[in-house]
Each structure stands twice: as C-alpha cells, then as structure tokens.
C-alpha cells in the first residue's frame, strides 16, 4: 500500500471484474508524482505563455479570478472523484446536486432561517440526492452512468418546474461570507482546500474510505472479503452527494441569483479535472492532491483566454479538447500496462 498521505490505491487482487495486471502496482507510486509534475508543468507553461503575451496577467486580480473559479469546481471534483474511485463510473447528475442544494439553502435563508440551518439543509439536500441515485443503482443493479444520465436530465426538468430563478438574501451572513476574503484569497477557496484534505484523509484512514477504494479496485474481491457492495455504493453516493451539497452552499454564497441551468457549466470541467488528475475511470485509483493541481490548471484557462482577448466560449473549446486529450492518455496508459 502506498504510504503517501492523500493517495489511495487499489488492492491488487487477481481476476474479477476489473482485475489489473500485477505489474502496474510497482509503477503506481511513481504515477501520482509523474501526473503531478506533468500537470504542474503544463500549468506553468500556460501561465508563462499568457504572461509573455500580456505581462499584466500576473496580478492579484488573476489570482482572485482563478481561485474563485477553482473553489466550486474543486469541491465538485472531490465529489466526482469519490464516485469514480469507488468504481461507480461517473455521476452525470452532479450539476443537479449542486443547484438543488443551492436552492434549498436559499429557501431556508429566505424564510429567515439561521445560517447554520441553511448550510445543513444544503448539505443534506445533496446527500439526499446522492441517496436517490445510490438507491436506484444499488436496488435496480443498474449502471450508474445510465441512472445519473436519467436523473441528471430528470432532475433539471424537476428544478425548472420548482423555480425559475433563485436569489440569496443580500444581507445574509452566507452572502457576506461569499463576498469576503481571507489571506488575500476568496473566502470560498478555503472550504475547498479543507474538503480536499478531509476527503483525502477519509479515503486513506477511515473504514468508509478503505471500503470505497477496495470496492473500486476490485468489486468481486471486496465482496469475497465480506464488504457489502450495497452499503459501500450507497455510502459513496451519499458521501459524494453531501460534498456536492456543500458545493451548492458555496455556490449560493457567490452567486446572488441563479437559474436551474446554472450547474451545466460545471459538468465538463469537473470530469476533465478528475480524469486529468489520473483518477482512472476503471476505479480504485486516484490522488486528491493531484486533483487540486488539475482543478487549478483548468480554472486558469478561462482567465487566460480572457487575457488573450478571445471570446469566453473558447474556454469550452479548450476544456473539451483537453478532456479528449486526457482520456486518450488515460486509455493509452491502461492499454500499455495491459500488455
């Protein structure tokens, strides 16, 4: 087992649904470091090129913009990583978790509820949405991608029926928190860092995390060892949902008003960040510190593009191309290690 604090590794067990060749485990310790160095290198390159074209890119304004973008994407990326590491493939309904939680938070605040209650309700909403997905997956024995594709579109439709747009009360503490800064960075950046650290620690040191990784690495082997797949899957979806719920709470803090569609833009950047970070779609493997790097890199792209004087839509083009590139590399690695 890897001893590094935040990395999670799959137990190498022969045969089973997603058995992996034994040779891969030796190279594993180096993979996370190589991933981290590669992403950091590309990130520095992006910053260097942008600075060459526009020297004013290196400013506190840019830092604010990037950390701002990275905050919510980062928390959501942790939620997505949990699902992917557990072998749950992908949760395509995360944008719904995000906005639904944001909406319930706003509802509690608008009704005059205390801040802690609003935050709690937001997190519980996310967990409940995760539980819904998890229950369908576990009891229907259905593929999570199909289930969350359906609940993602269904959930968006549901939200459009529930509300057209939501506004957080301007004077609320949560809104004030969203406007504030701490150590020169936006307030919402810090909860993201805390979530990454806590999730990383939970994966490495708690029973929940150990089981999640074991199930993702080799479901049949985990089952044979007496881990309940149902409980592990449900636990993953509920946990990931709660994290997405927290992202929703942070989202309300920085978006004074939003529509049900507002979550759609996060879908790709989150999946791209997860895959770019080397969290393999086949499960059981992922490092949340590398994830932090890839979120930071992806969050820099929109700001870079603005400095290049390109239309914001170019960010979608580049992020899409990056995702294609990243999954290509992920697939290539798996293919090569399978030889």
């Amino acid at each position: 087992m890897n001893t590094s604090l935040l990395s999670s590794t799959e137990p190498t067990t022969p045969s089973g649904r997603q058995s992996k060749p034994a040779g891969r485990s030796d190279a594993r310790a180096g993979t996370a470091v190589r991933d981290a160095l590669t992403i950091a290198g590309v990130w520095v390159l992006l910053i260097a090129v942008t600075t060459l074209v526009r020297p004013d890119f290196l400013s506190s304004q840019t830092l604010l913009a990037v950390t701002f973008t990275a905050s919510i994407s980062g928390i959501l990326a942790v939620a997505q990583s949990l699902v992917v590491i557990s072998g749950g493939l992908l949760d395509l309904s995360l944008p719904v978790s995000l906005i639904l939680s944001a909406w319930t938070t706003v509802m509690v605040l608008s009704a005059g509820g205390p801040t802690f209650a609003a935050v709690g309700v937001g997190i519980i909403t996310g967990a409940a949405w995760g539980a819904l997905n998890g229950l369908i997956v576990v009891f229907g024995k259905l593929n999570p991608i199909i289930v969350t594709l359906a609940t993602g579109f269904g959930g968006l439709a549901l939200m459009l029926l529930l509300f057209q747009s939501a506004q957080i009360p301007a004077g609320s503490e949560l809104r004030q928190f969203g406007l504030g800064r701490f150590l020169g960075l936006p307030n919402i950046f810090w909860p993201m860092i805390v979530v990454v650290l806590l999730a990383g620690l939970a994966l490495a040191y708690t029973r929940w995390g150990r089981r999640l990784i074991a199930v993702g690495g080799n479901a049949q082997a985990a089952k044979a060892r007496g881990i309940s797949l149902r409980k592990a899957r449900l636990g993953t979806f509920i946990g990931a949902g709660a994290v997405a719920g927290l992202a929703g709470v942070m989202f309300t803090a920085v978006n004074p008003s939003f529509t049900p569609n507002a979550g759609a833009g996060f879908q790709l950047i989150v999946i791209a960040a997860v895959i770019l970070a080397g969290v393999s779609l086949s499960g059981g493997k992922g490092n949340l510190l590398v994830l932090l790097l890839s979120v930071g890199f992806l969050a820099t792209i929109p700001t870079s593009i603005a400095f290049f004087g390109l239309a914001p839509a170019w960010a979608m083009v580049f992020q899409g191309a990056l995702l294609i590139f990243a999954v290509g590399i992920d697939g290539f690695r798996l293919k090569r290690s399978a030889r």
Partner: protein
Amino acid sequence: MTATTAQLFSDTPLSARARLLESLKGPIGSIGVTLAATIIIGLVWTGPGFLSPSNIQIVGVSVAIPLIVAVMASFALLAGVVDLSIGSMVGFGAVIFNQLVSAGLDPWLVAGITIIVGAVVGLVNAVVIVHFGAEPLAVTLGMLTLLRGLCQVIVVNAPPTTLVEPLYDLTQGAVLGFPTLLLIGIGLTFIAAGFVSKTRGGRKVQAVGGDPRAAARAGISVSRVRIAALVASGVGAAVGGILYVGQLGSASNVLGTGLEFQIYAALMIGGYSITRGGVGNPLGGLFGLLVVAGITNILNINFFDPDYLDLIVAAILIAAVLVDRLRGGDSFE
C-alpha cells in the same frame, strides 16, 4: 447431419399464440406495449383527435430529424461505443451550413462540406476511442463541449436566416398526407434494420458490440467496424443539422442542446444499451422515438409545462433499463 436435424427441430413453427407471447417478452414486444399504452393514454386523455391526420403530421414532423440522427447513432451503440456528441454535432452542422450558405456559397457544396466535417468529427472521436482505448463516454462528452463552444464562438449575435428552396420543400413537404422527411426517416430505419439483421456487415457490427474479443478472434477488425460506426454517427448528426436549417430557416448557437439525451433515451427505451453493444434494432429505436414524441404531443395538447417531458422520459428510461436488466441484460454491482 445431426446438427441439421437439431436445427430443423428448433425451427419448428410455434403456434401463433405462443409466438405472440414470445415476441412480447422480447425488446420489440415490450416497446410495442409501451407505444400502445402511449397511444391509448393519448386517445383517452385528448380524445379521438389524437390520431387525426393533422396531429399525426405534427408528431411526424417533430420526430423525423431525430429519427434520422438516431438511426445513424444507433450503429455506434450496436458496435459498443456511445457517441454523446451528436447533440452538439447537430448544432455545429446546422451552424456551419447556415453561416456558409448565408455567406453566399452554393448550398450543395456547403452541404458536402458540412457532411465532411461530421465525418471528421466522428473520425477524431473514433481515433481517440479506438486507438488510445479511451472511455467513449468521456471522449464524446469532451467533443460535445468542444463543438458547443465552437457554435458559440461562430454565432455570437442573432444568426442569419437562410432559405434553401429544395431543402425547404424536403423538410416541409408531404407525400400522400405523410411528411416527406418522416417517410425518408422510416425508409432509412427499414434499410438500417435490414442491414443489421440480414447482412454480413450488420452481423459484424453486432458481433463487435456483443463481444469484441470473440469478434477479433473470428477475424473481424474491431477497430475498423467501430471507426465506421462512429463516422456514421457524426455524418448522421451533420445531416440532421442541415435538415434543421431547412426546417427552421436558421441555426442558433444552442440548437441541438440536450438532443442526445432524448435520442439515447428513445434508443434505450427501444432496446439499445449505452453501456454494452450488440443489442437493439433500429425498429425498436423508431418505436422509442415515437413514444417520446407521443408523450411530448400529449403534454403539448393538454398545455402541460414541457419540462414534464424530461421528467417522464427519465422515469421511463430507468424503467426500460430495469426491464432490460431483468430480461438478462448486464447488471451492475
């Protein structure tokens, strides 16, 4: 000799009733039941007008272009790869066609260019998926975003309007009271169904989707089949985009958003799977699209918020996948 007799034996015709029951258990049977239920609900809720020629015309027009896109995309599903980028490709194809035609180029030339772009997009998907062994869903999700981004880069303000006479006639015309485009779509469905079930090529696609390793051992080139299927999917979406310009007279930068969900939901309701290949028939896809279009129509007639559609489709989709699983489809643990 014994093999032949055994084969003869298993082919003994069943009684009509037994055969009907047998086919009801199959994918086409359950989707047929769903379609019948939709029609009955439509008749009960909205009266006999539901099956009036004018209403059938309305449903037919709305289903024609998605049907053409769906039939082409179904080859990819059958070959075991899913192409999520079709919705954006429809939009991107429409945007290119609309912009270039309004810039004064010859519509036929532009149509050719658009189709080539669709093929290239399919090829890029295919190369990354087949040669690098990347997860199809993630690759085509990237392509979906990339193409939608390009649509928004190209069309910033109100898009120009174009009128291409022959295309307008094609998309708005009717033969014997049936929309021309619907007839073309149904014709294409039958050709595709014949290809899949009756030809060597079709069986190859099924074999590749069902068990790629076994197909490879049998001497079928898995990568070639999958590349062809993904190119077909891209071309189908490009054609869909061109036809939408004919129908709408313009192309905004959000055209086709979410179309992939409705198409894949319809295909999965019709017996396809986005996670495993080798199953499904274009006719099932046609029924699935008719179910979705029928529900849309019922909601429209009864002045329901169209948002209920996605909610109902999502529920039917999960039910359909569950039924498929109970019928022996793959289960996830």
